[in-house]
């Protein structure tokens, strides 16, 4: 196993780069970061829709959340793969498909996290904001959301870990990320499938163990901080 690692570590780390697109571990982390950043504004909008008293906001947001919860990510990726070219008029790469699909998918999951963050705040926060003369939207933007988003940082970081794991589906549509790199190595060696895929599993394991450690550190740090909860 050491031999496989010492022979192929560069491919696992950055893929074909600099002779081709960036791949491997760097692409996996990059895909996760970009899609979660894109998912964030979408998540806020969906969360606001989910708590809205207006039916025109509530029902579409709820429908999106339920469809995403009920459909496998892989079907979602195939839909984007089919629809995105029709929408923008020319063909798109696997990376763009993957980012778009993950952003939509994670957006719905982030929405539920943010919604629970908003609902965990004491009602008095909104009432105080309104009685100080702020409009509903301004209270939301200046008082509710900053607190709710701060309180949900640990959950959103955990969602980042899930996203890292979900980027592995890029393998199915030949996006050059970590799993794809391992499959390439397996196709070159042919005789050591167990060692190659065990190495792949250990790589994900180490990466996510480090990320879990970061989440726990943040949680601990916030515990001594100013988290606001319904009392």
């Amino acid at each position, binding site marked *: 196993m050491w031999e496989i690692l010492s022979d192929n570590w560069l491919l696992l780390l950055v893929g074909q780069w600099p002779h081709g697109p960036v791949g491997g571990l760097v692409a996996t982390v990059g895909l996760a970061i970009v899609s979660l950043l894109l998912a964030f504004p979408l998540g806020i909008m969906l969360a606001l829709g989910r708590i809205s008293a207006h039916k025109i906001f509530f029902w579409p947001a709820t429908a999106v959340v*339920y*469809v995403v*919860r*009920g*459909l*496998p*990510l*892989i*079907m979602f990726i*195939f*839909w984007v793969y*089919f629809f995105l070219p*029709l*929408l923008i008029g020319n063909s798109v790469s696997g990376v763009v498909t993957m980012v778009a699909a993950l952003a939509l998918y994670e957006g719905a999951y982030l929405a539920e996290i943010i919604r629970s963050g908003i609902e965990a705040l004491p009602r008095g926060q909104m009432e105080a904001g309104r009685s100080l003369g702020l409009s509903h939207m301004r209270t939301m933007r200046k008082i509710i959301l900053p607190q709710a988003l701060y309180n949900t940082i640990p959950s959103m970081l955990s969602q980042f*870990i899930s996203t890292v*794991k*979900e980027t*592995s*589906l890029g*393998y*199915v549509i030949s996006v050059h990320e970590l*799993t794809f790199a*391992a*499959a390439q190595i*397996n196709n070159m060696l042919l005789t050591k*499938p*167990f*060692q*190659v*895929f*065990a190495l*792949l*599993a250990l790589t*994900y*394991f180490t990466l*996510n*163990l480090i990320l*879990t450690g970061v989440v726990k550190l943040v949680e601990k740090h916030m515990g001594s901080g100013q988290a606001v909860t319904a009392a």
Partner: protein
Amino acid sequence: MKYTFDFGALLGQGYPALIWGGLMTTLEMTLFAWLLAFVLGSVLAVLRMLNIRALNYVIAVYVAFHRNVPMLVHILLWYFGVGAIMPLFIEDVVNQIGGEFVYSTIAIGLVTAAYVSEDLRSAIRSIPRGQMEASRSLGLSYLQSMRKVILPQAFKISIPPLTNQTLLLFKNTSLAMAIGLIELTGAGREIESATFKTFEIYTVVTVLYLAISLLLMFVGAYLSKRVAYVTKTR
């Protein structure tokens, strides 16, 4: 957007049978993986309650390994990796059932077991210690108290998270198409590449997935409501 819709194209060439077969494979996988996940998950959760240090450590590593590695990677590891080092007589048995089916079901079941054990563990921990003490002093053994007193209550508390795990497990069976299993998603892809009726076939597959997912959510909500009612009136 230029696209002509033709759902009729899906009715020929034995496509309905292909979709039906795919759906059945998906449901079979869900059932077997679910059984594996819930039996193993319960066993792990109970073993962890025994508080034996070495055992706790082993289970913690099992859970961490299965939660931190993507499910697709587990499937690839089982199908390509473990499948290659299996003794011949086991391989023969596996191949008779279908290697793709067996290995992906095992992988999905083992991963979900890790999540189930954690959900159950937190439910068991939320049951007052007095329950165990009371049943022990009534003369039940540790395992009897677990089985007759603690676990039934823990299962009730954990209905919502376990419903969620069941739903995720059902959705995750679609990952088996990556190793070539013709389950629902795989059947959809087959028909898509044969007919190019992408929109139509994806719609059919999506509706089937959504219908079953919503059914699972509904059953979960019904169960937790019913159980809450029964507990309250007693």
